């Protein structure tokens, strides 16, 4: 009982250290490397942090039913993201849309 408590407690602190390190990387990376990939790098780091939180702090590790449900809903979000991104990357109405040129 006490042993499992200690193991779990140490686990929480290990994840904390991982998240803190990734936060430091989030914060310092754009100052060190100025790049057009800053946005992608930031989102990648955020995804790794999210994975750590989901697996360990939200106890999804070993959860089959709930794990698949979460993955499925994230895939739906990703699916709509992809469709909209394809659309907006081929935006054809720059001159007439109020989203791009409200004063025209």
């Amino acid at each position, binding site marked *: 009982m006490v042993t499992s408590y200690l193991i779990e407690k140490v686990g*929480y602190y290990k994840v904390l250290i991982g998240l803190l390190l990734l936060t430091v990387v*989030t914060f310092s990376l754009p100052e060190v490397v100025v790049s057009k990939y800053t946005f992608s790098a930031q*989102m990648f780091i*955020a995804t790794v942090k999210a994975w750590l939180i989901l697996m360990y702090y939200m106890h999804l590790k070993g959860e089959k039913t*709930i794990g698949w*449900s979460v993955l499925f809903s994230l895939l739906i979000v990703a699916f709509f*993201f992809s469709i909209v*991104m394809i659309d907006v*990357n081929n935006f054809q109405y720059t001159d007439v849309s109020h989203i791009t040129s409200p004063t025209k």
Partner: protein
Amino acid sequence: MAHDSHDAHDSHVYVPEIAVDREGKEHVVQGWQGDYEGGKLGFWLFMLTEVMMFGAMFLALTYYYTLHQQDFLIASASLNRWLGGFNTVVLLFSALTMGLGLLKMRHGDVKGAKLMIWTTILLALVFLGVKAVEWTAEYHHGIFLGLDALQSGNEHSKPFGQILFFGMYFTMTGLHGFHIIIGIGLMLWLLKRINAQKVTPDHNILHFNIALYWDLVHLIWVFVFPYFYMIGAGDIAGGVVHGH
């Protein structure tokens, strides 16, 4: 049938309803009060609706970002990322204290669990305080919902892409802040339930679910922070002075 004889110590223990059939035989009615897995699954379904809601907001944000990249980078660079970064660390530690509280509760240390919940509430208030300082500074710089800088068509108007950025910034950080306030309310309610011994080491699904909620609030910030504060960091926007 009420069971008033049960005192507060075991009032959360389910006492089954009895149904009587035509022959007068008694049958125990299936109850779900102790259904830990069901409680957990139900709460996850609620959280998935939260993911969909914030997912849609991130989708709108990404749509605008794709159309107005330079404006977004300039607007992002003007935010105070030290305050945003500080709040990121505050939320990170609050996720730890909430998790440790649940761990203590599950292992019978109720007093320790309550201390951890109070610590989490304190950290949540610090987060809100920093956010208030940040928004106040932005307001004094003329940047707030409804002010001229964020309305198109007047002499103080910011470029349209920046108006969209700040509109999304106040909406999303505001909605996130609202979730923090709800979280504080839930934690206070949880403390009340613990004091009433409705939440105990053997009956902790409410504690588990509120800890899950708090992790979700943290998880959303993990994406909100880089998206608003960090994409314009460094010199990527072309030498913009940082911080309001």
